């Protein structure tokens, strides 16, 4: 089985979460704790890299909704990068591109943080 993994990196003060596998109702709690950890560590500039994510359902999308407000209140953001067409389509289906900064590459997400 493929499972789900979150790898946490720190890139000059920006927390980068690299997702791997599938993000569904079963694995969403793993992402939830990873994001909670960032906030507990006062890291509010967060990039989520979707490069190795193969599947997402509404339970996965819901995780981001649960944190975005708090993070932005602290002048941070959750930026999303490296989505495959399949994953982007699910975000798009629900109008998420209007609410989230979705970038092609992690580098672009990083420089858009640094410009702020």
């Amino acid at each position, binding site marked *: 089985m493929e499972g789900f993994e979150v790898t946490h990196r720190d890139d000059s003060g920006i927390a980068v979460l690299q997702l791997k596998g*599938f993000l*569904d*109702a*079963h694995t969403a709690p793993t992402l939830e704790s990873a994001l909670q950890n960032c906030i507990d560590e006062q890291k509010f500039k967060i990039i989520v890299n979707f490069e190795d994510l193969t599947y997402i*359902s*509404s339970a996965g999308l*819901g995780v981001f909704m649960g944190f*975005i407000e708090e993070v932005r209140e602290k002048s941070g953001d959750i930026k999303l990068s490296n989505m495959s067409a399949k994953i982007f389509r699910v975000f798009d289906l629900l*109008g998420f591109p209007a609410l989230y900064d979705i970038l092609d590459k992690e580098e672009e997400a990083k420089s858009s943080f640094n410009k702020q």
Partner: protein
Amino acid sequence: MPRKQKKYRLKFPGQSDNLEIIRDTVSRIAEKAGFDEDNINMIELAVDEACANVVKHAFQGGGNKPIDLEIIVDEKKFTIVVSDRGTGFDVNKLKRPDMKEYLSKKRVGGLGIHIIHTLMDEVQFESVPGKGTHVRMSKFIKNEKKSTVKT
């Protein structure tokens, strides 16, 4: 009943760790029915949303009751019926969420049924509080249907 109708049935314990196998098995059956990758992905997601609701709402995350999937394939339609004998709910109170309002309020959840309606061609909810729920959803099989076996 058309002669070429094919029926599949899957019954899995109603726990979230089975969602992956359910998705994969339904995807395989959809592939056999001739759908292309995009349509398989849509069916996979719609079925996952319906099954995740069974685990989360009908069984409230616990218990040992089954998720029951029936898949009926004929020349024109691919139909999945997801059934549970869980809590049930009042279907009349279901509103399709206003996504603008949803996003501006940054609400968590409430997206599953919206996804199902958006991705499938026909959707029907039947639920009796205290008894359980049937979600019936179909996708039409267009001309994309190719030979079903690659040998």
